[in-house]
């Protein structure tokens, strides 16, 4: 019986690093796994860039009256740090892991729209590179990631930086919406037989919720940034009060997107945690439906709390009261999740692997961030703390202590599946402790300096305000935090080279991705699995324990099997996978080049030649897009399921 062999190792560890790199199969790929890895690697590079920006800021703030950075450079750095971490790191990292894992979890061979998936990754990269180009062309965006009007108007932000911000994020926004549509259709319509909605792994659930959040939240941001672009390029005055515009409207439009955005950042990570905790506690998740539906609840409530970011602007008592109450209500579904996670570990056979440590770290740090969040939801307290370092502490506890620790948990958990090698557990645990302690050393004192009145986004401060000591401590902590990232990179490198080879199922897990080899063959499943429980692999391995927590579902033995397949397995050749195509990349490149041209279409730099060049870029972009659309249609006909029937 295949079940008994589950310690058997897979025969094909990652071979990508031997010999010359197969560029073509990566650049023209439509395989969700390769696309996922490109997402993950590029998001990690942006993570390092955003980290370097943070380190520069910490050096500047380490001592009072420091002149390491000028005010202008500091503005650019905090804008780019936040923009990078949110749009170019956490979001794409979530999407990357989701891209890799979600189809495997639901027993699919690819995403619903593989070519659209490829377009998303290249468009995301195009947007990210466009954003970073601004450093070379006269200055990065400097209006903060929230881009409050009227700071972003041409007279206050005269470099092209904000234009790069608008169009760069516009491109990543299109990528996100396309990706979200892809996830929605994949999760709803590509599930294996028997994988009903209420049997889906919670990570899949959360990706579904987040995809809906993305398609509902991004349009207002798109409209806001289009209006801002019209202000800057064509003298529109949407957000310029001096000319009849309204700066408040930007804040409302932005936060109507921005608050769901923070749930877009955290919910997939909560999904990862909900996968990892049961595996390393050797128990089913406690209260599956509650965890799933509290995710839906958080997503829904996320749309009616946006103005709690704006108590400081004076919206009046009615609006304040409404948004405060709605914000506090979010604590309920969040608390439900936290209690369910704790109850999952309770009396479980807990194995403290690195992934588990990170998951527990996530819960602990997220609780701290959640509690400071509740204090900020109260307008009187918020009025004291808003725009102070207290808020910086809060947001880093939920975004670093929450999202990023959770992403490391997911990273350690799925790394063997993606690469065929285990990450070194000993180095991993050392890295975890360095990161957890230095994270707290860096960010916990921000509560103190914030409460003592240190405003955020200032590039320096006078000595003797009572902030000196803690700022120095924070800077020291941040260096250890950076060191822990270097340890992680070291771990990845040595593990890829000589790490322990991963079997199909190194963690003794429960979901479908662990039935297939690590890394999986291009077609994932030789036989599409038939699912009859929430934990198909677990129930196959431990039939005597099957049926618990299935609430009256049939406890018929699970039919899933380990598969030991590769590209040459008999029958694998008959599985038709979409063919390689460069069209999505050309299309994305065209849009990026056109966006670059659009930035300079109305700029008074060097006069006419600039405008002609800008126009030229736009035309090249349009030509590339047209060529790509034609190529796309031709390539998609190659894979049409009907092709065989009318020839």
């Amino acid at each position, binding site marked *: 019986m295949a079940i008994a062999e589950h310690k058997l190792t897979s025969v094909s560890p990652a071979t990508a690093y031997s010999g010359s790199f197969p560029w073509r199969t990566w650049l023209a790929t439509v395989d969700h796994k390769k696309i996922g890895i490109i997402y993950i690697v590029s998001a990690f590079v942006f993570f390092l860039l955003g980290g370097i920006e943070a380190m520069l800021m910490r050096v500047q703030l380490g001592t009072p009256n420091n002149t390491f950075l000028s005010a202008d450079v500091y503005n650019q750095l905090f804008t780019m740090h936040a923009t990078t971490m949110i749009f170019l790191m956490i979001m794409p990292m979530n999407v990357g892991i989701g891209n890799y894992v979600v189809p495997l979890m639901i*027993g*699919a*061979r690819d995403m*619903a*729209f593989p070519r659209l998936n490829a377009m998303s990754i290249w468009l995301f990269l195009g947007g990210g590179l466009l954003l970073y180009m601004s450093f070379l062309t006269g200055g990065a965006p400097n209006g903060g990631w929230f881009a409050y009007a009227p700071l972003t108007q041409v007279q206050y932000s005269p470099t092209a930086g904000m234009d790069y911000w608008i169009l760069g994020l516009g491109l990543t926004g299109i990528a996100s*919406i396309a990706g979200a*549509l*892809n996830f*929605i*259709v994949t999760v*709803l*319509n*590509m*599930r*294996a*037989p028997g*994988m009903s909605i209420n049997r889906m792994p919670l990570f899949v659930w959360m990706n579904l919720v987040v995809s809906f959040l993305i*398609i*509902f939240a*991004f*349009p*207002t941001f*798109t*409209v*806001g940034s*289009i*209006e801002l672009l*019209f202000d800057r390029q*064509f*003298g*529109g*005055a*949407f957000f*310029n009060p001096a*000319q*009849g*515009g*309204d700066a408040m*409207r930007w804040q409302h*439009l932005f936060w109507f997107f921005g608050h769901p955005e923070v749930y877009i950042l955290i919910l997939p990570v909560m999904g990862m945690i909900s996968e990892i905790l049961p595996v390393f506690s050797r128990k089913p998740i406690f209260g599956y439906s509650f965890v799933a539906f509290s995710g839906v609840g958080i997503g829904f409530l996320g749309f009616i709390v946006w103005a709690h970011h704006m108590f400081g602007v004076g919206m009046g008592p009615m609006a304040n009261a409404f948004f405060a109450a709605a914000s506090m209500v979010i604590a309920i579904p969040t608390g439900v999740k936290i209690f369910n996670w704790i109850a999952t570990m309770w009396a479980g056979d807990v194995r403290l692997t690195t992934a588990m440590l990170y998951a527990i770290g996530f819960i602990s740090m997220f609780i701290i961030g959640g509690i400071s969040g509740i204090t900020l939801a109260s307008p009187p307290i918020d009025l004291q703390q808003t725009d102070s370092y207290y808020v910086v502490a809060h947001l880093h506890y939920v975004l670093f202590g929450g999202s990023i620790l959770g992403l490391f948990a997911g990273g350690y958990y799925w790394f063997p599946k993606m690469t065929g090698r285990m990450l070194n557990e000993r180095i991993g645990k050392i890295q975890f402790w360095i990161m957890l302690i230095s994270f707290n050393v860096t960010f916990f004192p921000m509560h103190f300096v914030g409460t003592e009145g240190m405003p955020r986004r200032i590039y320096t401060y006078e000595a003797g305000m009572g902030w000196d000591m803690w700022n120095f401590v924070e800077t020291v902590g941040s260096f250890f935090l950076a060191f822990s990232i270097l340890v992680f990179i070291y771990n990845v490198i040595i593990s890829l080279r000589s790490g322990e080879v991963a079997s199909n199922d190194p963690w003794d897990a429960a979901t479908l991705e662990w039935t297939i080899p690590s890394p999986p063959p291009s077609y994932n499943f030789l036989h*599409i699995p038939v699912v009859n429980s929430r934990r198909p692999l677990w129930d196959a391995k431990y039939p005597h324990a099957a049926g618990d927590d299935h609430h009256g579902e049939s406890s018929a033995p699970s039919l899933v099997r380990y598969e030991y397949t590769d590209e040459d397995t008999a029958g694998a050749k008959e599985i038709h996978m979409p063919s390689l195509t460069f069209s999505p990349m050309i299309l994305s490149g065209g849009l990026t080049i056109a966006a670059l041209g659009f930035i300079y279409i109305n700029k008074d730099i060097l006069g006419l030649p600039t405008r002609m060049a800008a126009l030229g870029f736009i035309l090249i972009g349009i030509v590339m897009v047209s060529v790509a659309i034609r190529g796309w*249609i031709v390539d998609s006909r190659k894979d*049409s*399921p*009907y092709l065989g*029937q*009318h020839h």
Partner: protein
Amino acid sequence: MSATSHAHHDEAGQAPLVGSLGVDSRKLGLWAFIGSETLFFTALITTHLIFYARTKAELTASGMFAHLDPKHFLGINLTSVLAAILLASSLTMVLALAASKAKEWQKFRFWLLATIILGSSFVLGQAYEFTHLYEEGLKLAPQFVFEGETVKSLFGVTFFTMTGFHGLHVTLGVVWLIAVYFKVRKFAASPENPMDVELVGLYWHFVDLVWVAIFTLIYLI
């Protein structure tokens, strides 16, 4: 629907187009996209309404509203014609879809061409309207000139942004319609043709739907 009949030939749940929910993947994706676009246009329309209310309040306070209401720019005649064109194109579109499902390709080509022509007429009509308004004094600028008086108002900015983006969607829709026309002509026997037509049809009706909202909220009220 041709796609359905293939569902059972392949491995269950992995049928090429019809999946675990029993619907066509592309159609589901397009409907979700339309849902997203609804929010996009709502944000644009809301912007226009907010600033029009403000202009109205300011002009009313100075007693000039009846005289200087920027709605005077928007002639009802041309707009009604445009609304009728788009509505008619929705009808021809659905007739083209019905013909494609009945495999009456002659009829299909006629109705799809009619949709393309009506759609193009709408774009041309809007281009005419824009140039006309521009000459009359409504520009993409935070003031407009009406009967020699300059009024500080965002009416022009919000109006052109909103209707411009709608026009852009109509234009892309026409391009898509043309692409489907040629695709169906080249692969007349392809069983996925009705779905290709249905998809562009859904998008086209949505664009019409946005115009229904703009026509009422912007031109009539």
